[in-house]
């Protein structure tokens, strides 16, 4: 377990564990205005955590992609609010996103992510580069690279699709960024 010592006023050390510390959590409707505040505040929070620039970029860029996927493609209302969270654990930083997707998107996501997660890194890099240079935009202005980017930038990528009711499923992504890379 990683531990740090915080000196108290009288000089006695206090042990603080990083076991699982929540840095940020939002459960509610997402829009660009809200996201821009999150980006600003999370970047500042990571600076306070002494996270170096490259890792900060990877975490915050991944958060932007996950949030914009929610804004563009998912159910995003008060009845089924999406969730975004960032925490710090012994392992590293954990970015989580959860949102409701229509069953029509579920099969696509399942197949797409199964393929992506099985790809060797070299193939993933090639896909990223080819989509960047040759791909087209979706109607909502996405480049189709968001999840590739998160997979690419994180050290561990997990996802889950759990049925919510007949028409919808909860889609969860958990991206971990290891401490070693801080």
């Amino acid at each position: 377990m990683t531990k740090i010592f915080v000196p108290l006023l009288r000089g006695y050390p206090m042990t603080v564990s990083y076991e699982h510390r929540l840095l940020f959590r939002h459960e509610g409707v997402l829009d660009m205005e809200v996201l821009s505040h999150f980006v600003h505040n999370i970047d500042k929070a990571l600076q306070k955590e002494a996270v170096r620039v490259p890792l900060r970029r990877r975490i915050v860029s991944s958060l932007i992609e996950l949030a914009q996927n929610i804004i563009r493609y998912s159910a995003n209302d008060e009845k089924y609010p999406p969730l975004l969270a960032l925490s710090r654990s012994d392992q590293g930083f954990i970015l989580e996103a959860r949102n409701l997707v229509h069953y029509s998107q579920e099969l696509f996501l399942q197949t797409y992510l199964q393929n992506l997660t099985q790809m060797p890194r070299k193939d993933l890099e090639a896909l990223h580069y080819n989509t960047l240079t040759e791909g087209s935009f979706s109607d909502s202005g996405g480049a189709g690279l968001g999840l590739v980017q998160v997979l690419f930038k994180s050290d561990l990528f997990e996802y889950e699709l759990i049925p919510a009711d007949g028409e919808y499923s909860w889609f969860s992504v958990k991206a971990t960024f290891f401490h070693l890379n801080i």
Partner: protein
Amino acid sequence: MSDLTTSEKLIIEPTFTTPEIRFDPEAYYFFIGGNSYPENSLKFYGPVLEWVQNWSQKVVPSSKLLTIEIRLEYFNTSTAKVLLDLLRLFEALHERGQAMQIRWLYLQEDTEMEDAGLDYQAAVKVPFELVAIDE
């Protein structure tokens, strides 16, 4: 046809999610800087692409060096893609004979931004310099 200097400037002020854009033909200096993660990058960059396309069709290429500086903080994948479209417009002008350099500015320790710059450097045939800065 006219030289670069006769065109109007393109100036777009930055927001939290969109970059500052200053394209100044008179100064032979174009700048893009800040955050770029608009919800719809095509909507934001569409007019910019159109401006560059119209402008580049009008100008007579010259040996006077046009500098394009890019210094981004956070940018989303759709910006990454549209930025390449923009650089390809500049590349077309360079192929017609306009002297040009692209300077990709990034913080010294920011290897992520350096890697992104390397991708663009490989993708366009324009003199492309990666410039590490301290602050």
